[in-house]
């Protein structure tokens, strides 16, 4: 488990990380979200003892990182996959880390095999593609078979196969009871991978909740229905809009988008009114949409600068934003 207690980092006048307090629990994948510059990487570096907090502390299984005697056997981390000496082979890069922590060298070959780098192991790391560097980084994180994994943007530069591989790997690690804390700005990927979400913006905690609750809370239930008969459609709309908090939009093709009702509720109502439906489905809110809603709202009631809005929007690629 990772524990943050009032973790704060100030660079000159800017507060990069502001009083972060949360736990990352074992046995599940915790996603770490936030716009660029929100302080995700700084937070991870402080957890790993690389940057010094201005105030507060970060503990791994109750101890600061620097107090771990064999840190690689307690925490596996990947921050920047490219941070390898280009002239050193991937294998030697890992051997140096293994030696520092009393990990037998045969374990290096095991993890290289596991990440699919066995063939390229003795080539200089400078010749690796971004995807191969990512795999080497993951190999380094797995080296000490640690109960805690901290991964900063692990799918960066990986091909679709690699992305699926990472997803399975972290899910398996969590299923084995390990603590997995990973950041990513790929919302669709995060939605598939994480069980729990920690969202920060401008260094402050915006949300610490399960994926399900996050999605549910982000937008009220909504559903789509196709009613072929115009009269029945009008009747159904009349019945729907009488309720508090329900709004209905009708598309030219006759499709209804109902906010504030689930598909089940609409189905029951249609049955009750003897209205024929051709299609009925819940609108699943995407993590991306939920996240955008949250950051947009948080911008309003935090410092309210107009600059923050663009920061939040810039963090997420816009294509496919709508569900």
């Amino acid at each position, binding site marked *: *488990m990772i*524990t943050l207690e009032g973790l704060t980092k100030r660079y000159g006048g800017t507060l990069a990380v502001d009083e972060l*307090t949360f*736990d990352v*629990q*074992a046995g599940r994948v915790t996603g770490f979200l936030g716009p660029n510059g929100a302080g995700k990487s700084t937070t991870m*570096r402080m957890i*790993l*003892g*690389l*940057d*010094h907090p201005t105030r507060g502390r970060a503990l791994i*299984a*109750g101890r600061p*990182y*620097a107090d*771990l*005697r*064999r*840190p*690689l*056997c*307690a*925490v596996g*981390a990947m*921050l*920047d996959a*490219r*941070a*390898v*000496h280009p*002239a*050193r*082979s991937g294998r*030697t*890069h890992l*051997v*140096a*880390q293994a*030696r*520092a*922590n*009393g*990990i*037998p060298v045969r*374990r290096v070959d095991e993890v290289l095999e596991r990440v699919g780098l066995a063939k390229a192991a003795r080539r200089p790391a400078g010749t690796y593609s971004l995807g191969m560097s990512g795999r080497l980084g993951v190999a*380094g994180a797995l080296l000490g078979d640690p*109960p805690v994994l901290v991964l900063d943007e692990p799918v960066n530069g990986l091909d679709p196969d690699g992305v699926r591989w990472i997803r399975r790997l972290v899910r398996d690690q969590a299923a084995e*009871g390990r*603590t997995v804390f990973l950041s990513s700005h790929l919302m669709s990927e995060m939605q598939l991978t994480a069980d729990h979400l920690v969202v920060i913006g401008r260094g402050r*905690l*915006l*949300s*610490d*909740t399960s994926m399900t*609750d*996050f999605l549910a*809370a*982000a937008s009220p239930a909504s559903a789509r229905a196709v009613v072929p008969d115009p009269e029945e459609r009008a009747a159904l709309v009349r019945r729907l809009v009488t309720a508090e908090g329900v709004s209905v939009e009708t598309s030219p093709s006759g499709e209804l988008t109902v906010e504030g009702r689930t598909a089940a509720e609409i189905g029951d109502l249609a049955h009750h009114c003897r209205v024929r439906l051709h299609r009925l489905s819940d609108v699943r809110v995407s993590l991306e949409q939920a996240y955008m809603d*949250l950051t947009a709202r948080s911008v309003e009631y935090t410092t309210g600068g107009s600059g923050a809005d663009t920061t939040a929007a810039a963090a997420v690629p816009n294509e496919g934003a709508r569900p």
Partner: protein
Amino acid sequence: MTILTTPGERANPARTVPDTPGRGTPGGLAGAIASEWTKLFSVRASYLCLLAGLAITGVFTYYYASIARINEHPVQPVGNAAASSAVLVQFAVVVLATVAVTSEYSTGSVRVSLLSVPRRHVIQAAKALVAAVVAFVAGTTFAVVGTAVAWVAFDGRASFEAGPSLLQVLAIGLYQALVAVLTVGVAFATRHPAGALSVLVTLLWALPSVLLGLGGPALADVNDHLPHGSGDHLMRLGAEAPYTPATAVLIVAAWAATAHLIGLCVLRRRDA
């Protein structure tokens, strides 16, 4: 929706950290030394530095002895050629130790290193020790080669006694080892090769040249307390020295220790 955590729900760490897998070599300083050794000898730059040192030794001692023979200098201990070559050869050690530190910063791999060895004094001690051992072995080897080359080139204008020559070889090795420790400290303090080399070239070469070039007993006295000035008194035989070899060692060691502490201070305080 739930904004912010509930700080009351802080479960105690259920899982203990298994940081003693009970197999393989020990971690700690021994592990850090093994790790640094692996890193140093897995890049070509280290071998190139050592080869360059060997080449400079050969050329320098050959010329030193040839000039002494041609100009009919008085007979001197043959090891003085190797001792004099240290003024240039030390930079092979300086570059080797500088690159060992600064390449980690330029590639960002210093973060990987600090993840495996998070205690700053341990990683710095490991780097300094490895560099010192390599510099000692290289320094003594260079000295033996330099002495042999010079013996040929002196062609009779030098004296050889086994005991003093052996001590001289060891003194050269010791000086190079202390230069390596000094360099690692400076490199950790500056983090950039340009910065580190500027400081070290000034301290080990430019400043002594200026002080001796300007002349006068006061400036010579200052030079006697700089690393290379005192190192020269340690390595060279037959010239009158203002202090004993032990004092010379202490002066060089004090410079190395100061640089080490400054480097450690920076390494501890600054973010990686």
